[in-house]
Structure formats: structure tokens, C-alpha cells
């Protein structure tokens, strides 16, 4: 959806992840970028260069916060100091929405710094949704939860991943950051049809999308964010855009990061698919592509 309650009624277009190797280029050349996504944890500090850079970026650009450590699915209660710092950053950036992952990653106060898959049970959905509501109420900002890539499935699961995502966001009444690359990666690792996933999530709750590259190994695919976006992911993105509408989209490129211009050009390829999706919405729906 172009603008909805889950992305603060904004229509941001195509953005880029703000990464250290590009700081100098961005600050000196001031390229024309619709918005930057920042990793919240990189700026939840007391001062120094990170906050100086952030303030200078905010003089020129809109930023949206994306987190990697709220761990909505962890059975642990949220850490108060973490939330206090996060809220201070929310106040600084005026982020129209805040995203983090539908996963767990900490136990008893010990952090894995990974995005671990959930057992897809109704109890886990309830626990997770309650935590999302609590965090949203504390931070006072709309929240979108992102589907993660995964390499394991659990016997305990009672539903598919997309049913679990839908259950959580309905219970929490929150938005979705739909990571199209993650859907593709998980579909290959677990053998489901990614178009089933896209067709069955609540489209009206999608506040943002992610696209990224991945790496194929012999027996599985890893979500590495170190490549351009691959064709099957672009096709999924086109389908997602047809189903959800043109939505704020961000390219993630986190490793082996090339020049700013190269990353930006890759992100702007999304425009082609957005245009196609706009045209397609005026015509009858095309047949659904088959899974790769």
C-alpha cells in the first residue's frame, strides 16, 4: 500500500540502506535519494561520529529506522535500557515507522545477534504479538515486522510461515515489512511456493518491502546481501507490488559493498517493476508465475 497506518501514511518510494563505506560520498555529493534506512543499533549510542553523521544525513534526507535486536519472538521480556535508547533515537530521527524482525535471538539476556526462526505455533504468535504491542506502545511509533530468511523448520510448527506472519500481525495490529528476497530464500530452503506466501499475507498491512541479493550453495541458499538482486527475486517483487500496491522499497546491500552509484542503480531497477505493476493493475490479473 503506498501510504497506510503502518508506514505513518507516507509514500517514500525507493530508498537505500545507509552504510559506512558510503558516508563520505553521501555527505559530499548529496546524491538524489528518496530516503535512507538506518540500522537503529548503529546509532543507539551516546555520541561521537555515528550521531554526527546521522544528524548531517537528516539535514538532507528522510530516514527510517530498521532494527535487528528487538527480537519480538524471544520469550525474554524487552530490555528496558534497550527500549529507552531506542526511544531516544526515535525522537531524534522522527522515523514515520520502525521495523524489526519476526524472529527470536536472545535468551536469558544473552544475545546471538542472529535472526532465528520461530516455531510457528499459536502460543508463539500470541507471545510475539503481545511483545510487539508493548514495544509499540512504549515507542509510540507504527511498527512493521519483517519476515526472515531461515534454514531450519520445526516439528512443533502448527502452520505455515505466512499463516504465522498473518496471525502475529493481526493479533498485534501492526504492519509488515515484506522482505521478498527472504521469502525466496526460505522457499528454496524449505520447498514451498513463494507465490503462495505472497498471495496469502494481508496485503493491506504491508508498509514497506525489502529486496536484496543472496548466495546459492549446493544444498541451501544463504541470505548474504552481498550481490545484486537476482531475477527470481525481481519477479517476486513485481508480483508483490501488483498485490500490495506500490510500497516504500529498500535495497539491502551489507557485505562486499560496491560504490554508492552501483548500489543506487541497482535499487532504482525497482522502478521498472513498479511501472509494470501499475500497468498490470489496470488490466486483468496475469496468470501467477510458477515457483522457481
Amino acid at each position: 500500500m503506498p501510504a497506510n497506518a503502518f508506514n505513518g501514511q507516507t509514500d517514500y518510494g525507493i530508498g537505500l540502506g545507509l552504510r559506512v563505506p558510503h558516508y563520505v560520498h553521501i555527505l559530499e555529493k548529496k546524491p538524489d535519494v528518496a530516503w535512507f534506512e538506518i540500522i537503529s543499533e548503529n546509532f543507539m549510542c551516546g555520541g561521537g561520529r555515528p550521531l554526527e553523521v546521522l544528524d548531517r544525513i537528516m539535514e538532507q534526507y528522510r530516514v527510517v529506522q530498521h532494527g535487528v535486536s528487538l527480537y519480538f519472538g524471544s520469550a525474554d521480556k524487552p530490555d528496558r535500557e534497550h527500549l529507552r535508547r531506542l526511544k531516544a533515537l526515535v525522537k531524534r530521527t522522527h522515523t514515520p515507522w520502525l521495523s524489526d524482525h519476526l524472529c527470536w535471538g536472545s535468551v536469558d539476556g544473552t544475545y546471538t545477534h542472529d535472526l532465528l526462526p520461530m516455531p510457528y505455533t499459536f502460543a508463539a504468535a500470541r507471545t510475539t504479538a503481545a511483545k510487539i504491542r508493548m514495544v509499540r506502545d512504549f515507542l509510540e511509533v507504527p511498527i512493521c515486522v519483517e519476515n526472515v530468511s531461515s534454514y531450519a523448520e520445526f516439528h512443533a510448527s502448527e502452520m505455515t510461515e505466512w499463516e504465522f506472519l498473518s496471525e502475529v500481525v493481526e493479533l498485534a495490529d501492526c504492519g509488515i515489512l515484506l522482505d521478498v528476497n527472504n521469502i525466496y530464500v526460505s522457499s528454496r530452503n524449505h520447498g514451498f511456493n513463494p507465490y503462495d506466501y505472497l498471495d496469502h499475507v494481508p496485503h493491506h498491512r504491508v508498509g514497506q518491502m525489502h529486496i536484496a541479493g543472496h548466495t546459492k550453495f549446493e544444498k541451501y541458499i544463504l541470505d548474504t546481501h552481498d550481490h545484486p538482486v537476482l531475477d527470481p527475486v525481481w519477479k517476486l517483487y513485481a508480483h508483490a507490488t501488483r498485490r500490495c500496491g506500490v510500497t516504500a522499497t529498500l535495497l539491502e546491500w551489507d557485505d562486499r559493498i560496491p560504490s554508492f552509484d552501483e548500489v543506487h542503480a541497482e535499487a532504482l531497477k525497482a522502478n521498472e517493476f513498479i511501472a509494470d505493476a501499475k500497468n498490470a493493475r489496470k488490466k486483468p490479473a496475469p496468470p501467477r508465475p510458477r515457483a522457481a
Partner: protein
Amino acid sequence: MRKTPGKNPPRRAPARPDSARALLAFQRLMHGALVRPLAPGDRMQSRWTDGRPMAEVVAEFIKPNDRLTSFDRLEIYNRMYWFRIIDSFYDDNPGLRAALGDRKFNRLALAYLAKHPSRSFTLRNLCVQLEAFIRREPRWTAPHTALALDLARFEWAQTVAFDEAAQPVLTAAEVGRADPARLRLDLQPYVTLLALRHPVDTYMLAVKKRDSLRSEASNATASARPAGRTRKVPRPRRERIWVAVHRVDNRLYYKRLEAPAFRILTALRAGRPLARAVAAAGRGVTPAQVQDWFALWMQLGWICRRK
């Protein structure tokens, strides 16, 4: 009291995590498995804590697929966990690595990370316990433990200087108006004072110079774990030094201090009134010297009001 991390994960996963409590038990088991140290060849350990085959334990809660066993699937996470935190440890401690050599440094990393997994939402704090760990378990750094301690403290001080908060600085006029017998000043939280037994400041510069030359020569980006042997930077000989690790305009600096100046700053940080802090400098220090030091510290923005 909180459960000690990494110890005694449950023996089995609950058949169905159908409550918040069961979810916690499920997560404790999986967490316990994926933070266990890797076996040789970067493989997951073949036995669980109770001696059962790991493949059997994992198969109880993780599904296999047509390409990977349950064991293989959990092993992906087990490996990613260790690679991630080891990389972070390498990134944070280039000087310690240069001083110990790759093999010893890697052993230290594994021993430290097994005892001190991350307790923070950010990996920035991963090495906060390293100095204490080296003191407690010197066998990992022997016979260079004194140097290793100096380097661990120095490298942590850089993390602090990079992004710790800054307080409003005090002006000379504000200090001048106050009664020195009662005035208590403080140092910026990002300034760390170190009394060291080795000149690790110059050593770190030599390590950085070597690494930048190597990077230019190979036209490679910086990597935490570069392949191949690297030219050794001679370890520094013992020499007492006093250093402040700080920042100016958000750039990191190290500043050597004279011993009396170090004592004054340490006393200020400890909360002594200005007059007593100055007296801590000891004999042989002239008022002009003290005045010059304060002028410089004020200029660097180190002095702030005590909260």
C-alpha cells in the same frame, strides 16, 4: 538471579511450545545448541551435553529436508554464530592479535567468547569483559599477559572514545569563579585514562601502518581475518606510560601524559575537589605547569561539570 548463559540448557525440547514458558524452554535448548563451541573443521559437536548423539537431539525438534539432515540445518546456525562473534572480536582487537600471533589470539577469542557471550543488544560491547578475563585466566596470553592486558584496555578505550556520550564542557570562566576547595570537576565519559606498562600507543600505530600497507599492496578491503602470514611488528619493550584515549571533532586520538598530570586527572575523575586533585600531582610540579595542563585539557574539551 539470572540463569548463567550457556549452562545447562534443557535436555529436550518441549514437544509443543504451546505456552510462553514452553517457548522459553524451546529457545533455551536451541540457543544452548547453537552457542556451543565448534568442533574441529568448524563442524557442530557430535555429542550433546548429556552424551547423546547430537543428531538424535536435533532431530527431536528440527525437521530434515530432502537435502539436509536436522543436524546439518542447525549446524548452519551454529557456524554462523561463531563466525559472527569471532569476526567481531577480531575487528575490535587488531593490536592484541598482532602481539599474540594468530594461533594464540584465536585460542583466546574462543575461550573468552565461550565464557562471555554477548550480553548486549550491540556487538560493540562484546569485549567489555576482556581485561577482567585476561586477569582471571592468564594462561591464554602467557608469556605476554602484561602486554595483552595493556592492549585489551587500550583497545576497549578506543571503543569508548568512538561513541560514548559527551557532556557540555566547562569554560575557564566557570572554573575561575568557583572555590577550588569545593569545586568538583569531571572528565568527559569518552576519555579513558590509562597507566600502562608498555608503549602500546606507538605499537598500535605501527600495527595500523603495517595493515594499511598490506591492504594497499593487495588492493583488498579490510578484513578481520586476512589469509596468509603477515609481517610481524616487534612487540614493545616494557616502559611505563600514561595515556588518555579520547576524541576531538569525532576523531580518535591518544595523548601521552606526564605522571603528575595523570594523577590530577585521575583525582578529578574520582571526584576530589579541584584543590585536592591538583595536590595529587605531588612535589616538583609548578603552578605554571598545572595552568598549562588545564588550559590544554579545557581546549580539548575534556573537563565537564560533575553530575
